[in-house]
């Protein structure tokens, strides 16, 4: 009995110390302690070969599993793609006219062309490592000029932002991450706001500060791009998504539901904009 009580007391002391240690680490992380980032960089570098080996060995099995588990989705996607091909064939004749209209609109919308920014194209080598993480890993790192804070895009638009860099690997926080924020502009109205991620497969939310009776309210289907305001890590005019809905917040202002342009669930290659990250 006495032994059991002593053991129970020791267990409680152990768990209390572990909880305290965890809280200390969480506090260090929230204060952006350099030691945490260094440890993460080191761990990513050391673990990279093991992870790569596991991915290579398991590739046939994971492919087979996806074939089984996602069969319905693949069929749906196939049907959707066929429909889109037919639609695009029909629209091809309108392309020339659309291009002409775009040429007229660009100067009006003051779109900044990002073609001059140096880029690094990288392959996505790992998806989300856990159910609560919203990151992907790329096969290029500081060796390719990539730095923390740089924007990541693909052909469709904004994908996310680099949050961790090792020599030959980097980690990108996806725009669907609830911690992700980016300044955006709604076109053609010009309303600005901050877009926030809402998790896997979810739309973004943009609080514009606009009220129900404000002039130039955004409409469903309006384009949303990065605003590129001064000191923003993101250059302007990167497509972010389209307005899917407008809804009232708890207050008087309206919130935009924005469907991301880039499909973050199916990324193979992305482009990192090698743009110096402004100091906050």
């Amino acid at each position, binding site marked *: 009995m006495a032994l059991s009580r002593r*053991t129970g007391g*020791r*267990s409680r002391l*152990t*768990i209390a110390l*572990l*909880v305290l*240690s*965890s*809280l*200390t*680490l*969480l506090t*260090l*992380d*929230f204060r952006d302690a350099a030691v*945490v980032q260094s*440890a*993460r960089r080191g*761990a*990513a570098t050391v*673990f990279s070969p*093991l*992870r*790569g*080996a*596991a*991915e290579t060995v*398991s*590739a046939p*099995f*994971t*492919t087979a*599993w*996806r074939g089984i*588990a996602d069969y319905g989705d693949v069929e749906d996607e196939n049907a959707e793609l066929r429909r889109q091909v037919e639609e695009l064939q029909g629209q091809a004749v309108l392309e020339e006219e659309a291009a002409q209209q775009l040429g007229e609109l660009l100067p009006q919308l003051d779109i900044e062309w990002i073609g001059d920014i140096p880029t690094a194209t990288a392959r996505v080598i*790992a*998806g*989300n*490592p*856990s*159910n*609560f*993480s919203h*990151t992907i890993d790329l096969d290029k790192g500081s060796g390719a000029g990539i730095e923390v804070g740089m924007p990541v895009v693909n052909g469709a638009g904004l994908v996310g932002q680099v*949050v*961790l860099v090792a020599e030959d690997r980097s*980690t990108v*926080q996806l725009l669907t991450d*609830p*911690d992700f924020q980016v300044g955006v502009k709604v076109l053609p109205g010009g309303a600005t706001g901050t877009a926030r991620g809402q*998790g*896997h*497969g979810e739309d973004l939310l943009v609080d514009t500060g606009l009220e129900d009776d404000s002039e130039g309210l955004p409409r469903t289907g309006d384009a949303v791009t990065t605003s590129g305001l001064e000191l923003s890590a993101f250059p302007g005019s990167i497509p972010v998504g389209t307005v899917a809905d407008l809804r009232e917040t708890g207050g008087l202002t309206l919130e935009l539901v924005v469907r991301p342009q880039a499909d973050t*669930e199916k990324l193979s290659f992305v482009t990192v904009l090698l743009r110096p990250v402004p100091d906050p």
Partner: protein
Amino acid sequence: MTPPTPLRVALRTSLVVIVVLAIQLGIAPGLSLFDVQAELPLLVAIGAGISTGPDRGAIIAFGTGIAYDLLLQTPFGLSALTYALVAYAVGGMQDSVLRAAWWIPVTTASIASSVGVILYGVFGTVLGEDLINLDLLRIAAIVGLLNALASPLVLPAVGWAAGGRGRSMPMRAVYR
């Protein structure tokens, strides 16, 4: 049978944790079910609790959580905190339920995995991650199922590594 030395336990446990993390990061994302993947490091934590009790189980779970946190971009220490508490709770239950029929550790692992996911969501929300929603319950349920499927491989590996008490006990339900 003489119990393994602390050094041997540390080496074996490190080996198991490294292998499990490699599988979690390299393989588990490709074996997801309804876009939810198994949480194998959490299963290691639960296995440590089952094998070694609340005290050592919580320490091993804490170490596993730290290692996992190093490889994620989630709050550093969140997995460690959650895993330590889950292992402590599971280890405490093992004082009442010793070696058991094969399905009891599997069921324990499944339920504890779901509870661990919800606990992670609660702590994450306290830290500003906004994780409490209906999707959390869906994730918890699927993680419980996937971890139950993985437990016949992971739990014995953790038991071997941690040199748990009662390893030679008969595989029958024994209630105290």
